[in-house]
């Protein structure tokens, strides 16, 4: 009995590693890869070759397998990870099928369909781990080590960054993260883990052939991860145990033993469909990587409990804004144009955003204001023209590179990371800066009054609270250049006024602030300089008073005949 359980334990260890590898890639990273079995196989074949041909001792066999799979992972990541979600599914599926053929035909390395025989067990300190229980213990230790490492990665700032880019890669980029590289990194880590599983497998069975590394295996791994819960590694552990034992029981049943393989397929399929339908979060839901500590010495009740959104917004006027230690750069836009097909969205626009002032961009819908923002921040590539941040030309820089120069931008409509907690959102925004990040994030949340909500998922906050969180992210970053896209949208007068006070104070601290707005009274209140866009072209610029009186502007907003309520 011990021996039998030992055998199952080995497979639990192997599937735990495989499922963890996929959970990191899919659950955390949001990369839908159906080729995990390929890395499993490559790891197994690499270990097999190292052991059989080169007599590689432990741990070189394991490390060698990892290196090979990581190299392959890097190659695949370079080719596929720029693509959008569903294409990654198909791309990895295609690779899985190509590799199945390679495994079956590349006789020199894989032995083709005949496989590789006689892979010896590893030797620890000179003693071969030949007994079943011995190997089970060995496998358990290896699995525990790598599972522990995975937990560490999950809780780390890198883990948080990976989850953020899964939620909203564009937003993460504008907060200074090279999401392409982060995605690639988690994919490669996943490949390495699967490679370790493959090496364990090869040395356990002593024989590898292509049949264990086909698309069905990849789908089986997905089942374990989904049942356990995407984004939760402990759930993966539970699911790996359950789903490894299940087929064993099928073998024990006289009724199903003959057609055990078919019954197993049936069972896995039913489980998968049922879990997705009824328990989409699997056994365990995703956990935040960081939790708030209550403010020292202050009990939560004394923080005034849960104020409502409106009251919180009005508090914004009093929030701490630190003075900028150095001068912010001048953001210069020179002759920038962008056309989409026949439509000229931005046509030869030049402007300057100066520190210490609030620059406003106004214009009717479709005038190109947000497009211009996107061009300046690197989210769109301009057809012509140049953009400078101070003396640095940023025309062709990636959004994350521009963000790292010291730019924060918000998006039209609230954009935060819904499946991260409020605290995690702020921690992430701060992540490119220094130590004691958790405390600083907590302080920011306390400042804007969101401390009681620190551990709630940002997506569960109200609209007003999310808006405040967004401003919290802006304040947390303390960047010298701030772009705000329609932040006054959807708010009542008192809140808009409070927001206006905040924006003026941000500019007064020495920062360069640019706002895009529809709410004209907000603009007149807040702006030092106003630029007016219409049909992609700059038609006017100047101080608010001049713009208010400018007939062209009046015309584009209200048509000929003047503004209603205008004397």
């Amino acid at each position, binding site marked *: 009995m011990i021996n039998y359980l030992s055998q199952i334990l080995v497979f639990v260890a192997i599937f735990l590693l495989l499922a963890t590898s996929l959970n990191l890639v899919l659950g955390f990273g949001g990369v839908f890869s159906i080729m995990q079995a390929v890395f499993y196989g490559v790891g197994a074949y690499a270990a097999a070759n190292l052991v059989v041909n080169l007599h590689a001792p432990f741990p070189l066999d394991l490390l060698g397998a990892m290196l090979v799979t990581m190299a392959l992972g890097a190659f695949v990541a370079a080719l596929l990870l720029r693509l959008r979600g569903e294409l990654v599914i198909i791309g990895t599926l295609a690779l899985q099928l190509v590799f199945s053929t390679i495994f079956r035909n590349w006789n020199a390395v894989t032995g*083709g369909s005949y496989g590789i025989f006689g892979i010896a067990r590893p030797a620890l300190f000179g003693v071969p781990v030949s007994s079943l229980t011995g190997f089970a213990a060995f496998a358990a230790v290896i699995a525990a080590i790598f599972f522990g490492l995975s937990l560490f990665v999950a809780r780390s700032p890198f883990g948080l960054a990976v989850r953020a880019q899964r939620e909203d890669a564009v937003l993460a980029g504008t907060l200074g993260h090279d999401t392409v590289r982060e995605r690639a990194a988690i994919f490669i880590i996943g490949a390495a883990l699967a490679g370790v599983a493959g090496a364990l497998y090869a040395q356990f*069975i002593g024989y590898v052939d292509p049949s264990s590394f086909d698309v069905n295996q990849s789908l089986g791994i997905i089942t374990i991860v989904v049942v356990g819960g995407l984004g939760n590694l402990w759930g993966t552990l539970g699911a790996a145990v359950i789903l490894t034992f299940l087929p064993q*029981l099928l073998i*024990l049943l006289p009724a199903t033993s003959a057609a*055990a393989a078919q019954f197993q397929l049936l069972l896995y399929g039913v*489980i998968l469909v049922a879990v997705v339908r*009824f*328990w989409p979060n*699997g056994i365990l839901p995703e956990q935040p990587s960081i939790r708030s500590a209550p403010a020292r010495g202050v009990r939560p009740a004394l923080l005034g409990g849960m104020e409502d959104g409106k009251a919180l917004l009005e508090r914004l006027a009093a929030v701490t804004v630190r003075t900028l230690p150095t001068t912010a750069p001048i953001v210069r836009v020179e002759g920038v144009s962008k056309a989409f097909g026949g439509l000229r969205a931005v046509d030869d626009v030049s402007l300057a955003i100066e520190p210490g002032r609030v620059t406003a961009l106004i214009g009717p819908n479709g005038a190109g204001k947000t497009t211009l923002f996107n061009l300046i921040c690197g989210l769109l590539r301009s057809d012509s023209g140049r953009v400078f941040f101070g003396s640095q030309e940023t025309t062709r820089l990636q959004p994350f590179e521009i963000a790292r120069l010291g730019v924060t931008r918000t998006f039209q409509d609230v954009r935060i990371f819904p499946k991260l907690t409020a605290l995690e959102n702020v921690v992430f925004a701060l992540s490119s800066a220094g130590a004691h990040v958790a405390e600083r994030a907590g302080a920011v949340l306390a400042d804007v009054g969101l401390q009681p909500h620190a551990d709630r998922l940002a997506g569960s906050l109200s609209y007003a609270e999310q808006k405040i969180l967004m401003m919290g992210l802006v304040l947390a970053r303390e960047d010298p250049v701030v772009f705000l896209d329609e932040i006054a949208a959807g708010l009542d007068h008192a809140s808009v006024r409070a927001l206006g006070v905040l924006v003026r104070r941000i500019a007064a601290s020495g920062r360069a602030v640019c706002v895009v707005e529809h709410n004209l009274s907000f603009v007149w209140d807040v702006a030092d300089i106003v630029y007016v866009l219409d049909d992609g072209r700059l038609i006017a610029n100047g101080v608010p008073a001049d713009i208010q009186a400018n007939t062209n502007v009046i015309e584009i907003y209200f048509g000929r005949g003047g503004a209603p309520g205008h004397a």
Partner: protein
Amino acid sequence: MRLSVIPLIAAFALVAGNVHPLPLQAQTGPKTFTFGAMFPLSGPAAEIGEEFKRGLDMAIDDVNSKGGIDGWQLKSVVVDHKGTALGGAQAMNQLVNLDKVPFVLTTFTGVALTAQPIAAQNSVLLMNVGGTSNNLLGKPWLYNDQVMGDPLNQPLAQYSYDNRARTAALLTSEDAYGKDDGIAFTTAFTKLGGKIVASETFPLTTTDFTAQLTKIRASNPDVLYIVAVGDTQGLLVKQARALDVKANIVGPLPTTGLITVGGRAAEGFVGSGIAVDPTTKDPAAKAFLAAFKAKYNTVPEWDAGTPYEAVHFLASLIHETVRSGGDPRSGAALLKALEAHPVFQNYLSGGQVHLLSDHGSVRALQLQQVKDGKYVTIKVVQPPK
């Protein structure tokens, strides 16, 4: 930590509802001798698995109904090796580690090759009643009740050559069986003076042989030699004829699947395998053939016969061991008995089967041809003395 309990309960319910008290420990009673058997119960060769099992069960019933052997009742644990080497390794692991058997019947070349090192390491006597590769010979702890490699394929080469075939094409499965038997045929055919004009392989799970058959057709062979199991044999010949491959088709170990799936395309196929002689005068063989026919309404083929023989051989080994005072549940003791007396009853064509020093066996082979949807024996090849 909010644990979504319901799927956890669901999973455990699934598990709990299916657990019976483990049936694997032998039933108590008079002494029970448990041994293992690895058969293809799923995959393309599943029908052969059924046949193997029939032979096995009949033999066990025979022995047990006579009161067992020296007080030992026989009990088998049958495990599905799925027709793959990996399945074999897993099956063997289960038999050796959970059921702790001292004796295992195995089938299929790839399975036997993976099982043998495990058997040797654990002192388990392994008896191959199905696999045919030359590579199964000369391996410790593994003995073969089968016509293998050269004696299995040479008559096919001879038959083809005698029927004026001078060029041959091979189409073999991508496993140890296909590879090794293909080599045996090639050796025999070229030795006779023939030439191999095409050599193609296919993966075990494929159902589309167009690419291979088209290339074979282009090489215009006089004879096509195939190695495949079960339904795949039938599918192969069917597509071959449909793709206008006109050559005669031959191959080792013909199966029912060749005819059920192949239909008319199977006509004329010549296969080689262990000889079954319904006209034998040998009383033991005659009894077996008659009993099988009575129960299943058909003369048994080799795949029901070899497990039957192996079980009876096992019974005699148990008897030998008990007689010399040993415990038959020791694989080493059984091996000793085998080495002392490496002979057993041939239940398919009468007489005895001798195990050679390379652990192969000497027995008669037959060539069968498909005529009107049935196998007809066209030649019997006696083993060299």
